[in-house]
């Protein structure tokens, strides 16, 4: 990953969480965010595929099944770029701890499974800063599948990789697709220094570990709010 801006000059810290659907990573990053904001740290949370402007087009593309592997990849990169240019980078410059629920590695995994060239995908996202910490919530495929499939009556078309034509049965397709994504993640663990978290443990146990790692890797007191832009009684 190349860096357009010298990382030394960036005051903030970037923390990414990655993992399969059903790995529990969203729960963990939510708890991380609650802890940091309640304890008075400058924290910002951003989610994959959530740019207000771009998401409309993505939704239409998904709903009407207009997307191909290449346009799927590009539209998600557009979404990411919007959040990156307007929020992630400015907030990092302003000295925030930015928590990202899924980062470029999600694209690396999904787009590669969909058949896009791995080198091309990496170049597409080459403008993105490498996170200071990447937590990878590692869970046996079976557990992840059970968590997703137990709680829901149906899985979404793209989530199940139905566009890949693995199987006409959404559940079977989902299993195959997630299995392939799992393999892609495993390839990246060493390539990008993922911090593995055993996501089959109880959530509170995982959270304790995650917080411990964060505290050792990030000098948290630097990220406290100092003073206030509001009168005291409002806080």
């Amino acid at each position, binding site marked *: 990953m190349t860096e357009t801006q010298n990382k030394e000059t960036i005051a903030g810290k970037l923390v990414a969480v990655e993992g399969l659907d059903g790995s529990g990573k969203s729960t963990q990053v939510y708890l991380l965010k609650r802890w940091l904001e309640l304890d008075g740290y400058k924290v910002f949370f951003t989610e994959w595929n959530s740019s207000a*402007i*771009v998401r409309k087009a993505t939704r*239409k*593309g998904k709903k009407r099944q207009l997307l*191909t592997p290449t346009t799927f990849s590009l539209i998600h990169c557009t979404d990411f770029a919007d959040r*990156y240019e307007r929020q992630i980078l400015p907030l990092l410059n302003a000295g925030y701890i930015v928590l990202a629920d899924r980062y470029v590695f999600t694209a690396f995994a999904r787009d590669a499974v*969909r058949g896009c060239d791995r*080198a091309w995908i990496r170049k597409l996202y080459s*403008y993105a800063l490498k996170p200071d910490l990447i937590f990878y919530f590692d869970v046996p495929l079976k557990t992840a599948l059970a968590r997703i499939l137990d709680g829901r009556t149906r899985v979404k078309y793209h989530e199940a990789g139905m566009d890949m034509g693995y199987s006409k049965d959404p559940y079977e397709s989902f299993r195959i697709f997630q299995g392939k994504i799992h393999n892609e993640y495993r390839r990246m663990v060493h390539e990008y220094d993922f911090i593995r978290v055993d996501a089959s443990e109880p959530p509170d146990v995982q959270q304790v570990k995650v917080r411990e790692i964060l505290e050792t890797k990030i000098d948290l007191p630097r990220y406290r709010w100092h003073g206030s832009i509001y009168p005291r009684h409002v806080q």
Partner: protein
Amino acid sequence: MQKPKRFYGKGIPGVDLDQLKGQLIVVEGADGSGRSTQIDLLRNWLERRGYPTVNVGLKRSMLVSRELEQAMQGNILGTRTLSLFYATDFADQLENRIIPALRSGFIVLADRYIYTLMSRSIVRGVEPAWIRDVYSIALVPDAVFYLAVSPKILVERNLRKHAVLDYWESGMDMHRSSNMYGSFIEYQRLIQKEFKAMQTLYGFETINGNRSPRAIQHALRAKIEVILNGKSGLVEEGSHDDANGTERIARSATTFADGSKRDQPAVRGQSAARHRSTH
């Protein structure tokens, strides 16, 4: 023989290039360079001769064109985001219009292609290597014609036609000058510099677009004729006449290719409805 098709990089996954029997012809140039006029004339010429054609251009994808238009109205997207949004629009048309048409043996006339998109991004500060990588998905055209028109003439043509300059084609988002006239000229110079730099890299033909529409059309036809002749297939009735026509066209093209700067606005006879600001 027809040159085999190729992508600039890895291209689109799962496309069998050998199946792409048609021809991809690109016309590049600024607003007011006469692109659309020339493409309309080429289309008539080709269809009269029995070649099926398809027109493509920027911001015409089913996937994102409307959303892209809305985002530009508000002018709130960052440069990189906008570049990627355009790339998505391009990829959608490449996969859903250009490639299928080429597979069916059509001639695809592209009103602008990746070169405009790349130069717009580069003049706005995006790294050239990055944007080239983004567009490594693109198919290498069979021919690219760049209609080079001096910025002064562009200004005159645009004003005569619309009485107003386009915000984006004037580079107003770059805030280099509050004077729109000056900004337009400066922006078009920057774009032309990028095109010049790309010319060696991508090997496209620069056509002197300062000339009359007729002279430009003759030059284009002569060059396209060469491409079509390299292709087996259509031998039509009256091909003898056509050969004569070609000779005549080729001759007149040389007459005009002396670099003389004749200011003949390409506006007459062009339907206003056909004009669409493509940025």
